[in-house]
């Protein structure tokens, strides 16, 4: 792979990664949000595989395929099942409307650039220079988490953050040690399963998954 082609492919994958994250802010149908999350998983897989091919590392390519199977396959599948079980498919009125959300995303992108300056300065390779994109997705995920009112959209917000951290790990260091990577994937999978069980319980006791109903506990 030539240098120019490597950089172009890397930027393309990162662009797709960012775009799917921003589009989550735009769409309100929960099924569309799950689709976007799956597409982001594909972009992340592509990103890791490109890095693996560049470094001639079969191990990295295998890890990338594993990451893809979890984030573009298994997790979206679990979420779609929860969606079918949960009924109603649309986000209720979010706290912040779509136009404002997109503006906020722009501000978050600038914040991410500022925050990642020390990281880029340490080693300005093409891969580390795209770290601000991963951090933007992290902040967007956090924003989705605090402004959306549906259990499933909060879950997607959390998983966007997690995708972003995984992307940061691969872009900066070609991934954390394998034991840790396995542990992280397992924890994320279990967290999603636990949240799914809790969603079922929530449907049973609250009659829905609207988080505005959660206001029994306060001081």
């Amino acid at each position, binding site marked *: 792979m030539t240098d120019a082609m490597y950089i172009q492919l890397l930027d393309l994958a990162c662009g797709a990664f960012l775009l799917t994250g921003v589009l989550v802010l735009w769409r309100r149908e929960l099924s569309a949000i799950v689709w976007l999350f799956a597409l982001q998983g594909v972009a992340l897989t592509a990103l890791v595989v490109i890095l693996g091919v560049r470094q001639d590392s079969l191990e990295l390519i295998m890890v990338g395929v594993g990451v893809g199977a979890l984030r573009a396959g298994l997790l979206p599948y679990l979420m779609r099942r929860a969606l079918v079980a949960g009924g109603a498919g649309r986000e209720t009125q979010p706290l912040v409307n779509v136009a404002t959300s997109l503006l906020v995303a722009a501000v978050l992108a600038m914040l991410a650039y500022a925050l990642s300056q*020390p990281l880029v*300065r340490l080693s300005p390779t093409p891969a580390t220079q795209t770290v601000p994109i991963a951090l933007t997705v992290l902040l967007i995920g956090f924003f989705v988490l605090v402004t959306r009112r549906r259990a499933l959209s909060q879950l997607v917000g959390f998983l966007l953050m997690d995708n972003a951290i995984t992307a*940061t790990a691969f872009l*900066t260091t070609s991934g954390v040690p394998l*034991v840790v990577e396995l542990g992280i994937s397992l924890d994320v999978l279990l967290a999603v399963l*636990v949240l799914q069980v809790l969603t079922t319980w*929530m449907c049973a*006791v*609250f009659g829905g998954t609207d988080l505005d109903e959660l206001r*029994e506990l306060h001081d």
Partner: protein
Amino acid sequence: MDSLLVIAPVAVPVAAAGLYAVLGWNRITAWLGTLSAAGLLACAIALSAAGRHDALGGLLVSDALSAFMLLVIGAVALLAMAASPAYLVAELAAGHTGPRAMRRYGVLTQAFIAAMALAVLASSLGLLWVAIEATTILTALLVGHRRTRQATEAAWKYVVICSVGIALALLGIVIAYYASTHAGVASLDWAVLAEHAGRLDPGVMRVAVMLLVLGFGAKAGLAPMHAWLPDAHSQAPAPVSALMSGALLSVAFYAILRVKVIADAALGAGFTRALLVIVALASLTVAALLLIGQRDYKRLLAYSSIEHMGLLALGAAIGNSLALVAVLLHILGHGLGKSVLFLSAGQLHQALGSSRIHATGGLLARAPLLAGVFALGLLALLGLPPFSLFASELGIARAGFDAGLGWAVAAALVLMLLIVAAIGRHALRMLLGAGPDEAGSLSVLPRTVATPLIAGLAACAVLGITLGPLHPLLQAAATIAGATP
């Protein structure tokens, strides 16, 4: 043999969890949890005498600090597990639980204890993170055990806030690993990181340390990400609250201690000190403000946990030998005292059917033994002698004045005075105040619950008078936690 001893604290509760999964919870297996906790405590005592050992090719390492944390986990787990059988019998009688939920309780509590043991034995930041996130997942369904609206809400908030907090810590770990790769080390092992800390890029490490302290701080119940704590601790079954408050918070705080060693070597002591002082004073302020008008005695105990975590952060910020010994002693004293209080609060809740403070008036006349235990527990928590929290709080304050952080200690003391006044007022109302009109005397405390409660209080009092054989262990652990002379 030695490496078996390092694996045992994780393996014993995992085996017990497996047995619960197969056998379920019945009159005999109910005591399996207690047995496993006692085994864990015995391993901790053996390890604390054994010095540094590793196992599984260096994945697990036990040093004085890990051994001390295992002692805390073992002691709290023993109290909580010994009180569990009677607690679940009462829950079953009241129709709040069933055989399936009880089996799940047995499996999850043991797996939870194993995850905490793994966290303090892990030799790398990565494995530590995995273990701490596992505790969140394992306790989530325990918090929602009663499946009421409140319990489900608490469990949801708990998983979401803690997972986000701990995700920040993961980003911090990734960034620290990036710094270590460029220093030519490429390791997450903290002994290695601390040794080569001088070569880590300071700009990158500053970002990493900030994320790590905030992230693990969320799990330790420190401000600003403490909002899950009062909900989760007040809704979980009493023995689980005891484990979460007495052991889990300190395990998350232990992660901060390990990070601090690396951070201080890479950035100098000033950076983490400033960070921890801010977090400590913020936590104490939050606790003081929300304790004053508190109407629920379980939430009162939860906010008091935030207060004590704030004190630990202050002690770690001071960072000299006296302060760190006091911090470690405070972890143990708080673990014992708070478990006793949550367990007795659980008995109270079962007897009254309400966790409102105004429902408990005149407790001293209605249930003298339970009220006595509760009152002594509160005295321990407020830092009155002879309990060990008196000695450790005094140690932290003295060390603070020695280290030139007198202003922070003074501010903390003012906030603690407010907290003492608030808790004291609520306690007087609970114990002596006028009860509801139809108040009769309450059912007596079962002996299997009374024994751990009294044993916990006694241990806390003995530690306040003499440390005995614990003293060298505390000194060694404080040195590992990076005590400056």
